């Protein structure tokens, strides 16, 4: 669990996070709503350009893309064979339909395009920055505080889970498919919830002591850079171009 893409000094990393979040949202929705292969391929090329400009580490990015591959594989195993359309190939009772392959191809490109856009624009900032940015662009403050607290404590709770898991291992717990295994995991997760609640009580008291009044303050500031302007123009142009390609069909 690491924010591998957040470290970096590329042009993208230096632009205003609020601009990046807004651009990512507009870009994701534009691509998600496209149906023409030309448009989707153009977007895929743009996403690859973004990855190059942001100089993201190739290894972790590749692992994230293969993680999306599991669901895509399932899609390719089912959709082309079940989608009604012109037969492309016959295997006994199974028929590969041309329309099915076409749609699976478009979905694959869209998934990869949006995923890369999201990694470049949003996963390129730390979650604390994202939280304060969401607050700046009008997300309700309670939701932002939930996000910031959850982010702060996932590492702590993860550590708690490792302790429980180690304690079980030392007592010779070997997970297999039986009721005892499920009971043990249930108790571990139950203990995790109990400890989370206990910790929340102490955290709440500490917050009260420090005069928490429903606001977290951010010390981050982003100096204006010409890259803000470049990114805003580039994203607006690309989105307009994609809309035009989609309009052409």
């Amino acid at each position, binding site marked *: 669990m690491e924010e591998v893409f957040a470290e970096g000094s590329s042009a993208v990393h230096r632009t205003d996070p609020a601009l990046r979040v807004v651009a990512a949202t507009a870009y994701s929705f534009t691509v998600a709503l496209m149906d023409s292969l030309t448009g989707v391929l153009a977007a895929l090329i743009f996403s690859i350009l973004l990855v190059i400009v942001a100089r993201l580490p190739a290894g972790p990015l590749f692992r994230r893309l293969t993680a999306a591959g599991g669901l895509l594989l399932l899609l390719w195993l089912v959709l082309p064979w079940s989608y009604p359309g012109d037969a492309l190939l016959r295997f006994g009772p199974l028929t590969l339909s041309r329309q099915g392959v076409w749609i699976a191809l478009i979905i694959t490109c869209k998934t990869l395009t949006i995923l890369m856009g*999201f990694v470049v624009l949003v996963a390129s900032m730390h979650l604390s920055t994202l939280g304060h940015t969401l607050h700046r662009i009008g997300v309700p403050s309670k939701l932002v505080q939930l996000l910031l607290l959850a982010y702060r404590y996932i590492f702590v709770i*993860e550590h708690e889970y490792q302790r429980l898991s180690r304690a079980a291992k030392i007592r010779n717990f070997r997970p297999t498919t039986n009721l005892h295994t499920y009971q043990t995991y249930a108790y571990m997760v139950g203990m995790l919830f109990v400890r989370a609640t206990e910790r929340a009580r102490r955290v709440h008291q500490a917050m009260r002591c420090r005069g928490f009044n429903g606001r977290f303050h951010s010390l981050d500031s982003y100096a204006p850079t010409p890259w803000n302007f470049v990114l805003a123009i580039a994203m607006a142009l690309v989105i307009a171009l994609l809309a035009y390609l989609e309009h052409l069909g």
Partner: protein
Amino acid sequence: MHISEGYLSGPVLLSGAALTAIGTAVGLKRLDYDQIAQGGILASAFFVASLVHVPIGPSNAHLIMNGIIGLLLGWAAFPVILVALLLQAVFFQFGGITTLGVNGLIMAGPAVIVAYVFGPWIGRSGWVGTAAAFASGAGAIALAAIVMAASLFFTDEKFMAVAGTAIVVHLPIMGIEGVITAFCVGFLKKVKPEMLSG
């Protein structure tokens, strides 16, 4: 359980986002500032629980636990689950911006429903309480699989087979979540019963 970016149509994405926005608004209204720490840290616990893999035969599955989050939090499950999904999107790129609404609905909608339907029976001792806990865990997964299948079906009726596969794949997970939720609720009743009264 989530749908990746690029699969669903505009109307489905927007309906999901609208329903999740309503659920989140209700949840936030019921969560006052004294419970923010509780909600935030339970969101991290939910996130960590989803990293736990349990064996099923030769394979394994990760826990989901949206049923128990519903029992513990009621409507507040919406904002808490939404936050956990956002963390998953940023850390692992499971889901993304456009599917946040639909995925929130898939996970949190069932959580709130089981809290209303089975919540009142959870406190009972003996087999009634255990059965209600099992039904909360298994029911939350069943409903989630149905919402997921419905979002695929409403995108394109010809996705029927894909939607059906999504439901079948989740059948064993339903059983496991039911069993684990039943044990987990039994554990909480002994260790910290006040957590379940909320």
